[in-house]
């Protein structure tokens, strides 16, 4: 394989001499270092309240349901209400991140730990929201198993109002800033960074749009104002 590596790189370099634009590795190097944003659509560049409204509006357009709560402690009641209204079993797979919420005020059966195929409802915490397209951003890590966003048929996702940004670039900026460890990608990139825009869908059979292809059929987004303690 190492010979193939050399073969490919040699061919790329040979093509350059034959007319490909001249490499300026300094330009390329500083592009990686600076990671400057390109053109950012104006749509998301609005104040906080308008950003939250735009986020909710865009998410609803792609078939998510959205509610906004003042306090994180209201989350268990809201999930119980949502499941009842959707006629779903009051049984959820949650994460350690939410273990201090007042679950006992509800009749919800709450489990944490590895997600399994029979889980019907997954409750997740998003790293951020993006107003531009009503997109949730989820990072893998402790208390945030990736499969929890995808395996259960219903996904309830919690996002803090302060973490709803206008555009994807602001998410990357905050991702790089939050590590507190360093500036190398290994310090800020999670193993899996998921952008989620609405529930799963497919139009592969006669172009009939159906929700719930492999991922969740329902996506319920809870925006909380006071954040996670």
């Amino acid at each position, binding site marked *: 394989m190492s010979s193939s590596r050399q073969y490919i790189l040699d061919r*790329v370099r040979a093509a350059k001499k034959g007319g490909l634009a001249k490499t300026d590795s300094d330009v390329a190097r500083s592009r990686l270092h600076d990671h400057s944003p390109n053109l950012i659509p104006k749509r998301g560049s609005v104040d906080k309240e308008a950003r939250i409204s735009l986020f909710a509006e865009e998410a609803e357009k792609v078939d998510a349901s959205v509610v906004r709560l003042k306090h994180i402690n209201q989350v268990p009641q809201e999930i119980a209400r949502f499941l009842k209204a959707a006629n779903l079993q009051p049984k959820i797979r949650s994460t350690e991140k939410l273990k201090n919420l007042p679950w006992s005020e509800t009749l919800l059966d709450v489990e944490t730990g590895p997600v399994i195929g029979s889980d019907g409802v997954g409750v997740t915490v998003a790293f951020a929201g993006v107003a531009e397209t009503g997109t949730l951003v989820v990072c893998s890590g402790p208390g945030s198993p990736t499969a929890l966003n995808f395996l259960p048929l219903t996904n309830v996702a919690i996002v803090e109002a302060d973490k709803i940004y206008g555009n994807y670039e602001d998410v990357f900026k905050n991702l790089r800033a939050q590590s507190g460890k360093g500036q190398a990608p290994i310090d800020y990139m999670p193993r899996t960074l998921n952008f989620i825009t609405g529930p799963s869908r497919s139009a592969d059979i006669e172009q009939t749009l*159906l929700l719930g*292809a492999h*991922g969740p059929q329902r996506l319920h987004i809870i925006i909380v104002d006071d954040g996670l303690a």
Partner: protein
Amino acid sequence: MEPTSRAFHDNTREALADATLQAALGKLTRGFPVKRRQAADRLPEFEDLRDQARDIKNHSLANLDFYLQQFEARVSDWGGQVHWAKDSEEACQAILDICRNANAKTVTKSKSMIGEEIAINDFLEKNGIEPIETDLGEYIIQLRKEPPSHIIAPAIHLSKEQVAETFLGAHTDLPADRPLEEPRALLEEAREKLRQKFIAADVGLTGANMLVAETGSNVLVTNEGNADLTYSLPRVHIVIASLEKIVPTLEDAATVLRVLARSATGQEMSVYTTFCSGPKRLEDPDGPEEYHVVLLDNGRTDLLGTEFQEMLRCIRCGACLNHCPVYKSIGGHAYGWVYSGPMGAVLIPGLIGMNEASHLPNASTLCGKCESVCPMRIPLPRMLRAWRKRQFERKQSSPSARLILSLWAWVAKKPMLYRFVNRQIIATLGAIGKKTGRISWLPLAGGWTSKRDFPAPAGKTFMDLYKEHGG
């Protein structure tokens, strides 16, 4: 798959006579272009974003060696591994070796055009490993042993009745009298079947919509979520990607994403966009323990530095297919390989050679619609013409076409003779079609007149009319 592009004419005849296919194509080309237009209109910056996306890819290609090495170094930082593959054989072998090391029996797979290109499924099967396509459309065509007919909607050519028949034949453990009339029932059956496969698989094989040099990440874009179950549940994640997928930074990826879904399905954003970087971390509750990227050339470096280099900007959105009058008429299978439409007609000769694919660059009216909708502004008509020119120069076009072109060129270079010949032809054709304005049969033009009438000319040449009107 073995290309059947040589049989393009026969393939086309079959496609035109296939009523199910024609109905599906009608629906497809009425749907996607309208949705694309709406999405583009909703974003005032769309045209400027196309320019920037083009520039990002041009920059990446101009510095390809640098970015590929950066990407490889970042993947290593994570504890992942990059495997460089010159061609399909090397890529298939690399994937097989990883699967064998993992003692894999089954491999779940999310849709990858590179996977189709190297025919990885056949290769794994031959070597005793079961590959399972998980994208709904790909799953259906895998059961039917067919290639995709559209790069983003692989089973577009099938009716729901055909899908039901396929499932009845494949899922024999289920009651034969179960109702499968509705697409919902079909989707749920596939979901249930594949769920078990996702959980049982030893290796997950995905493609990549992009590779990010800054972070060593692969980007996956799906609507179903199948890619996410493919990489997150098995113990090993393999990414198969061609080398032109590289972009420098996350910000550059964001720009490309803004034009990708809008051009493809008219969505603002596909449902799931994922950045995977290396294997799971120590503290992660789930994710693969091994992460491999198989980086494929397969003829792409041959296109670098040539008039076809710009083709390597392609992000496989399918917009050129959805807007192409030829694709709309014949669908994807007629092109005889895994790619189709204008992008296929340019790329296929570049990858498998003009000898195999000589008809494809000629299967275009050069109307220019493809270039006008391409998010990466790839000059597809110019490249189709470039292939035609090469064919002519290398004497690869048909002898009769060459003879007629040479004759025409000889006459066209002599203005007096040209006008004289033209006047004779126009007068004759004008006389033949005088009554109806149409001509229903012409020697040497049976290809045209067997399907539709030829409009009769006015009987006088432009030059004559110009003189008459005192020009």
